[in-house]
């Protein structure tokens, strides 16, 4: 019988074992955070009510900043590690492999820092400043 499982065997040690463990733990946490986020934004609320005031109101509470920050960091690390595995699988020429990994971490890191900065440092301006 054909096996339907495709998950790579558990690595025996080193960084790949940590990667294996991290993907499973962050994946489970993200299941709650990301699906919760989408339920709040697209089912309980929707894109018709999301605007600057909506975000400012949410970010008045540190709980929601913490929620978004945890989700951002875990999702980006989970996603970058997943993309690294794809690059390992598909790009075999050493020079292109190094280039792809370098570019992935550079671009991913830049997005991660931008996202963290916005969540942590956002200061809402008063509602009267726009029509």
């Amino acid at each position: 019988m054909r096996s339907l499982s495709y998950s790579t065997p558990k690595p025996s040690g080193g960084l790949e074992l940590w990667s294996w463990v991290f993907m499973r733990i962050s994946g489970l946490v993200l299941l709650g955070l990301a699906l919760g986020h989408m339920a709040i934004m697209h089912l309980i609320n929707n894109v018709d009510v999301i605007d600057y005031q909506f975000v400012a109101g949410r970010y008045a509470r540190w709980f929601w900043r913490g929620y978004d920050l945890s989700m951002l960091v875990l999702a980006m690390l989970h996603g970058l590690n997943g993309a690294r595995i794809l690059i390992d699988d598909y790009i075999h020429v050493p020079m292109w492999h190094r280039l792809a990994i370098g570019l992935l971490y550079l671009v991913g890191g830049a997005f991660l820092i931008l996202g963290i900065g916005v969540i942590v440092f956002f200061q809402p301006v008063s509602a009267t400043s726009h029509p």
Partner: protein
Amino acid sequence: MWYRGGIGQWSWALHRITGVGVLVFLCLHILDTSLIALGPEHYNTIIKLYRLPVFRIMEVGLFASVLFHALNGVRIILIDFWEDLTRFQRQLFYLELGGFLLIMIPVAYVMLRPLVGR
């Protein structure tokens, strides 16, 4: 790189495709949200784009991608930790698909309702 065959191959490919798709959207979403730092005018102008019908349909696709990736990930974890489940892989996969449709049909209805004037 390709893997085995049948259902396992498709769920494996879909896991990778939805993963990459969600990562690309995450970067786009960081860019649009970072506009809140520039003030209400800029943020509201760009975020309004998400109300266009084409974006609403893509948002359903995003929801479906995250949901599939999540449920399929749970299936992988279950099989990793309880090897006995390997004997029920086909049933487990159909259970996953059933759960996916059970959640996705009402979600798509709620998200697309504004398009048809509720």
